[in-house]
């Protein structure tokens, strides 16, 4: 049985797709057979971030509507053979998704994969609620600013009440906080909420803090999940997140503004 993870946030532009790509790649590189599904029908992006946009033949909606089978639609990653991508359709909208259709796809994938990562669209409408409906775990991506935190809080309420687990009175979805685009420097001068501020408002388990990093943008543009850039802080932070999620004890990094001796000398 696969574990289904939804990467969600409520608010747009906080880094859901970057996170989905990074953790899916991270899990696969640790030897777990993983598939990452783009639920953002009509605004498909995951294929770009994963660098497989030129290999898309069939998509999620084709599979739901029976125009293709799941094997035809899955795209195998060229860098890691344990990783597959199921892209969204760009020409349809979210109405093409159905609870039964998604349920059937996840059921099929569940036999072949260990982890199913669902990249949720922004908002709390159909695409987002379907992406989280079947989830076992939720990675809630939040930026350290008030509107993002409030939207995450809203999403946590929906996770707790509108999921399959909630409807069947099963054990609730496990919620993990991913604080993205964190800059200790800006926290220090009061421009950004601190980790403590966000945790106090959301009161949930902190899975990791991803520092603000220029490498994220260039990686995305190049179609390389940031976790493959092992020199970047963000890439290392995502690797920590994956390790922590898999049960390893990894201390939190990138929360404080610590510079090495050279960094201090040269102000880097």
């Amino acid at each position, binding site marked *: 049985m696969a574990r289904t993870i939804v990467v969600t946030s409520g608010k747009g532009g906080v880094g859901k797709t970057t996170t989905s790509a990074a953790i899916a790649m991270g899990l696969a590189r640790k030897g777990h057979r993983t598939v990452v599904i783009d639920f953002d029908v009509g605004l498909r992006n995951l294929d770009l971030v994963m660098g497989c946009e030129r290999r898309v033949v069939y998509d999620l909606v084709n599979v739901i509507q029976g125009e293709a089978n799941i094997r035809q639609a899955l795209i195998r990653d060229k860098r890691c053979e344990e990783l597959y991508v199921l892209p969204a359709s760009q020409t349809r909208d979210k109405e093409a998704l159905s609870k039964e259709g998604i349920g059937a796809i996840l059921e099929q994938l569940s036999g072949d994969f260990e982890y199913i990562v669902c990249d949720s669209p922004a908002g709390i409408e159909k695409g987002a609620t379907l992406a989280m409906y079947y989830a076992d775990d939720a990675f809630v991506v939040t930026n350290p600013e008030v509107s993002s935190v*409030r*939207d995450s*809080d*809203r999403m*946590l*309420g*929906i996770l*707790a*009440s509108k999921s399959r687990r909630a409807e069947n009175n099963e054990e609730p979805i496990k919620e993990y906080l991913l604080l993205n685009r964190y800059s200790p420097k800006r926290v220090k001068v009061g421009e950004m909420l601190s980790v403590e501020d966000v945790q*106090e*408002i959301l*009161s949930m388990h902190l899975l990791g803090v991803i520092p603000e990093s220029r490498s994220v943008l260039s990686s995305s543009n190049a179609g390389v999940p940031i976790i493959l850039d092992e020199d970047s802080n963000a890439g290392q932070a995502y690797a920590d997140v994956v390790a922590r999620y898999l049960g390893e004890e990894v201390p939190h990094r990138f929360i404080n503004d610590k510079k090495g001796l050279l960094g201090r000398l040269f102000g880097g």
Partner: protein
Amino acid sequence: MSASQKENLAESPLIELKSSSFTLPILMLFGNDLAVIGEQLSRTVERAPDFFRNTPIVMDLSPLAAESQQVDFAGVVSLCRDLGMVPIGVRGGNTEHNRAAEALAMAILADRSAKRETAPPPKPAAPAEAAAKRDHAPPSAGNATRLITQPIRSGQRVHAEGGDLIVTAHVSAGAEIIADGHIHVYGTLRGRALAGAKGDTASRIFCNDLQAELIAIAGQYQVSENMDDSIRGLPVQVYLENLSLMIHPL
């Protein structure tokens, strides 16, 4: 008006059924002598004429029903009307009383004592319970306490109907908690809290850390902007005193 306009009108609702509870004065009738009733009633009204002007009133006939006494019902009703009251219904009467009330287009209100005619004698605990219930405005207030142990998130709405609400976690900004009775929040209260939602002015709000967007008791409310900074972030209780909202540190 075109046909489509008419259709639109038919679709947009002009009515809506809602339920609400009111506290009404009850006139207990212990005897059927119309002259004495009239005299005593006018003496009572003289003491507080403003209170009785156009006040809806319910007549409790249970003492009469208990002794199977008849009463000139139309007479009592017109006495009340002459004194400015608006009799709207009866409770606790026997079949004949009720028939007379119906003839005058008055409502027959349900009451425990009305059932006594047919039901077996109530258990010893029942009268005390009934009395306790009468002390509070919402008649259903009682043991319906609701306990919430998970955080109440932005956009969620929890309503403890007919009782108190206890939240052992925090209440986020953008969340709304409502109780017909008291509200207790043992975490931080950042959302809206409305106690005594059915008009019980004795309801209170208790919280461990007040950062609420809005607090209200029995419809008297205060928004965050008008709250005193000195009580923000403190454990407080909120209650009504002479219909104004009091916030005091605990």
